[in-house]
């Protein structure tokens, strides 16, 4: 199996889909000639031509809206947001148009919106955000966020295959830092299934995105102190794999939720509320959450470092919970 970076794996999935089906097209700002600001679609214009790799003006609302229209007439558009942050300009088309199409009129909108997100690259408040918290509340959308190259490709293919609008979150800090084996061809990774990254008996850590790697590191440290941590990578954030989550939580009876997104109204809130209500009698400790603080993402390295949940903080959370 080929070894690829997270970024190469996303591109590989997208390329395979475009080779498999001429109705898959890419559109966004600077995706063609430039190959995208992260060079993810580099070479796509040459291979697929300007009719399928479409450079657009700076118009997020129209880009997403056009993807909806194109999907309605049979294309499978894959939109690139230059940075996830800018998707707020397309909020209406995302949550009110694309997401409600099936429910209101039975119209399928098979489209993917790629959103390079996350902090750690000194991008400041508008080039670093986690945006899942804004979309998780929306019926009709699906949201995925891979943490490994294999998932990056598999989930991209599954997102394109899905007949619903899918928000595909790719963490900028993982683009080149993550390398791993990736299957060739149409190697789908089905939506809606969490992945067990580490088996454990003392507590369950639920996480996704860049935090998966920090949680695994913290779990290793905890193991050195005799704490066996189970780490689950959610992968699909909407719809959540509640079955897998609940099974593990019931088994370990202790749950720590870790995400990079802000605390208030983040995914952790819904998961904690859900488990707290349905596993009330089987929990031996309060469900805890570790996340970024409720502030914008600061630019200066000392602030940005303090902003992101660290391995130390996660380790402390694990230790506290295990001893509870």
């Amino acid at each position, binding site marked *: 199996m080929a070894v690829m970076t997270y970024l190469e794996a996303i591109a590989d999935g997208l390329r395979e889909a475009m080779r498999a089906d001429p109705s898959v097209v890419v559109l966004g700002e600077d995706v063609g000639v430039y190959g995208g600001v992260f060079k993810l679609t580099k070479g796509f214009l040459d291979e697929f031509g300007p009719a399928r790799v479409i450079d657009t003006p700076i118009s997020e609302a129209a880009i997403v*809206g*056009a993807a909806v*229209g194109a999907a*309605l007439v*049979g294309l499978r558009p894959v939109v690139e947001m230059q940075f996830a942050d800018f998707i707020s300009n397309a909020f209406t088309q995302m949550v*009110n148009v694309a997401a409600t199409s099936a429910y*209101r009129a039975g119209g399928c909108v098979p489209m993917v919106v790629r959103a390079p997100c996350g902090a750690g690259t000194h991008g400041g408040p508008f080039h670093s955000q986690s945006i899942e918290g804004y979309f998780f509340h929306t019926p009709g959308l699906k949201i995925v966020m891979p943490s490994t190259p294999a998932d990056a490709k598999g989930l991209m293919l599954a997102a394109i295959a899905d007949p619903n609008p899918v928000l595909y979150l790719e963490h900028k800090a993982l683009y080149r830092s993550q390398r791993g084996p990736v299957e060739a061809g149409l190697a789908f990774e089905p939506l809606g299934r969490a992945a067990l990254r580490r088996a454990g008996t003392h507590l369950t850590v639920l996480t996704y995105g860049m935090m998966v790697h920090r949680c695994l590191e913290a779990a290793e440290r905890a193991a050195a102190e005799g704490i066996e941590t189970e780490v689950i990578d959610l992968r699909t954030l909407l719809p959540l794999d509640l079955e897998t989550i609940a099974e593990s939580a019931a088994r370990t009876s202790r749950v720590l939720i870790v995400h990079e997104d802000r605390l208030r109204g983040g995914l952790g809130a819904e998961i904690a509320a859900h488990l707290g209500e349905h596993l009330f009698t089987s929990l031996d400790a309060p469900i805890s959450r570790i996340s970024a603080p409720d502030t914008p993402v600061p630019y200066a390295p000392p602030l940005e470092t303090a902003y992101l949940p660290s391995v130390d903080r996660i380790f402390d959370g694990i230790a506290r919970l295990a001893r509870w």
Partner: protein
Amino acid sequence: MTRAPRPPRAKAARTVSSTAPRKSGVVREFAPADLERLYHYMLLQRLAEERVVKLYQTGTIVGACFTGWGHEAVAVGAASTLGPDDVAATLHRDLGARLVLGMPLGYYFANFLGRSGSPTRGREGNLHIGGLGPRILLHTDFIGGNVPIAAGAALGFAVRKEPRVAMAFFGEGTLATGEFHEAANLAAVLRLPLVLVCWNNQFALSTPVAREVLGPLDVRMAGYGMPACSVDGNDVLAVYRAARDAVDRARGGGGPSFIEGRTMRVRGHSEADDAAYVPRALIEEGRRRDPVGRFARHLIESGALRAARLDDLRAQAQAEVDEAQAWAEASPPPDPAELERGVYCEATPWP
């Protein structure tokens, strides 16, 4: 998703013998059947909306009630230039366009009445029907929001190199919105086969056009780099001619066009609005220029149709309205058990 059976389709008026007394240019330019078809759909919109207003006034219809009184020529004239594979994104004053594109009139009543027989299964209200199979694109209440969708359909045709055209309908106030702007600009830059049809009815709710956008609309839109024109929106043939040119240009790879149809909103924004803010003179003048009556007179004077034939057509349209309403009323209200169904589309295997 459970779907009620399709209601009867709007009948395109059958052809008349073209042995009318006097002949005129119009008769030479348009086949009598085409003229009848235009008149038929305009009349059908008018009569259907009259009926819905009654149902609203008697409380049978709840929520909001919009009509396209005075907009029939723009709706029917423009939509009639579309080919069988073309699509349109419609809005709240263009019922006639939906009918021309094949929407069964029963859907209109079923949606207003919130019945399961409507394509929205009672989930949407009043005119907010869309996603009607291939030809009528997903509806959105967001003013300006339907234009990116239409541009996207046009993009789809361009990508596939299909000789198809997308049309978007909207009012003049829509030109102020960011979504309209981004979509019109995108279409111009990418030379998409899109036709932008604007009914300028002088008001956006209570806001006069001069408080929405300054200057002539066609001049402004020409600045986007697309052919733009302004026609009498109460003259269905003028609208038809302008739209035909735009559709032909789009189909031929000439990119998008903008058409302003000048008209007047002769009723309130919705039936809950008495339009007290509109000078009476404007409304009366608008009524005098009523596109439906005017076209009827024109058809007779031009010798295209006999008065008796007009009466037949009215009777036939009236019957269609009765039939459509009856069909809708026979359709059951949605079952609350359906409430949570269909939030997602069911997976279709890909690729």
